[in-house]
């Protein structure tokens, strides 16, 4: 009986958290994947105002993306404070697949977004009008939010060059 009560309580808590996160999308919970729409990118940027951050775009249908996620997962294990935001270009209704991948690389608790509009051309444009859609694609924003972009798997050299803060590599 106690177990059952605890379960119900947990479920209620879960619902409460879900409700709060719905009203306040910046709060992250276990399934912390957020809907990426036309204004999401500006929200991400304002979230990191005055700070440097790295944006990683990926898809479950992109083998090189997994190599990159593996690398980033290991780097973030050593540098948990490194500001890294993930955007999956897969539709958000396939988020179970995305969560499975992210969990494999210990990235499931990172800030994560998924494309939530079928007009993907406009979503891509909202991030970078000069991006052709190839994956993986990375963007680094320095403290003044000057943008650097890279197509293909990121390298440790790039990360070292981009970030002002020191990074420990595996």
């Amino acid at each position, binding site marked *: 009986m106690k177990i059952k009560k605890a379960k119900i309580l947990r479920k209620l808590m879960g619902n409460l958290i879900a409700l709060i996160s719905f009203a306040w999308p910046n709060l992250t919970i276990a399934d912390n994947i957020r809907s990426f729409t036309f204004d999401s990118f500006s929200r991400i940027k304002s979230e990191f105002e005055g700070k440097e951050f790295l944006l990683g775009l990926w*898809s*479950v*249908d*992109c*083998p*090189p*993306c997994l*190599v990159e996620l593996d690398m980033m997962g290991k780097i973030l294990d050593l540098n948990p404070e490194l500001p890294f935001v993930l955007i999956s270009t897969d539709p958000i209704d396939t988020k179970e*697949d995305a969560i*499975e*991948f992210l969990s494999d690389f210990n990235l499931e608790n990172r800030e994560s977004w998924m494309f939530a*509009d*079928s*007009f*993907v*051309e*406009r979503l*891509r*444009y909202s991030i970078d*009008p*000069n*991006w*052709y*859609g*190839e*994956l*993986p*694609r990375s963007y680094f924003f320095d403290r003044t939010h000057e943008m650097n972009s890279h*197509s*293909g*798997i990121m390298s440790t050299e790039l990360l070292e060059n981009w970030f002002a803060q020191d990074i420990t590599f595996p």
Partner: protein
Amino acid sequence: MYKKLLSLLILQAALMSPSLYAICDSSDIDRDQVSIHCGNTPSATFDARGNLWVAFVQDEFVYVSQSQDLGKSFSDPVAVNSAAEDAEHNGENRPKIIVDERGLVFVSWTLKTSSRFTGEIRFSRSTDGGENFETPRTINDDNLFTGHRFESLFLADSGHLYLTWVDKRDLEASVEAGEDYVGAAIYYAVSDDDGASFSQNYRVANNSCECCRIAIAPRGPENIAILWRQVFGEDVRDHAIAELTPSGKTLTTNRASYDQWHINACPHHGPTMVQSSLSGDYHMSWFTNGDLNQGIYYARYSFDDERSASIFQVDGQPGAGHPFLSEHNEKLHLVWKGFNGRETLLNLITSEDDGATWSEPTTLLKTNKGSDHPLLIQNSDSLFLSWHSDEFGYVLLDVNENIRRLSNNEN
């Protein structure tokens, strides 16, 4: 609402048709209803009598539907697979359909077997005019749980039915042997008995790109030419062209594009190719973001000269993509998707001199919602755009009629 009405009016004018096209999200159509408008990633073809056949995916079924009035109305969709299976349906992966002279219907698709890039090449046919389909068969013959995806289907004049695809069996073998392997491989199989059976699988090339559609065109009555994105050297993802025979022999393999796109990534952007009726050469169009070229390109490849000529930048704007070529009455047509920051534009250019010079672009249709890649199909009368979008549902648009209308409006 006003915008939507306006868009519909534009489409209406473009189609010059009195009937409105069904849109999946309109209130009078149930979204769950199986229909070409609510389905995904349709491919289309005409049969010998000029009837339109469309294959599409909806809720783990591949459906086939026919239209006898050029897409104004459709027959009730017939499910090709009787048991639900996860048929891939995205821009580069769609079911394919061919109807031969006698009315045999051939359908292929890629079955997604996991979320880890694995799949099987599936094939089915109807021998009773599309009323019933045979139980789908898996054509890759390696029994491996690995990637067999991005299939293409082609029927040669000789009746040989080709299936080509991107295959990861050699990658698997290399990984097991502890060796590096870049990309995937291109494989094919051939049927010489109207799809009743297929040959063993034949390898065309190692080290292809993993995630781009393969373009096929005829090469003589029974051979085919295929064009695909290949990894050259360590990381250059340009294009290769090859001639394949029904016996499993690859006759020629050459590099077809020199863009020097150094990238270890998935472009998800396959090429398109048709054979020229004027020269016998191969019209190609593709996307690249290489050191040498960026955007959508056109070139004409000659197997005799082993080189590409008349290279032309079709669209260098970043949003541009997914070109599709077709030749009709010796006139070459190229459609592609452009993007102006707000809307997707379906653009068209034409060439009447075998790709040496091109018309100015014409915008056939626009949408400010999600849309599929544009395809071109033809019957004996005209050339048609076959396109699916969230805004308009499935649209079949007479390209020649539309060009005439646009040019009349300009004059």
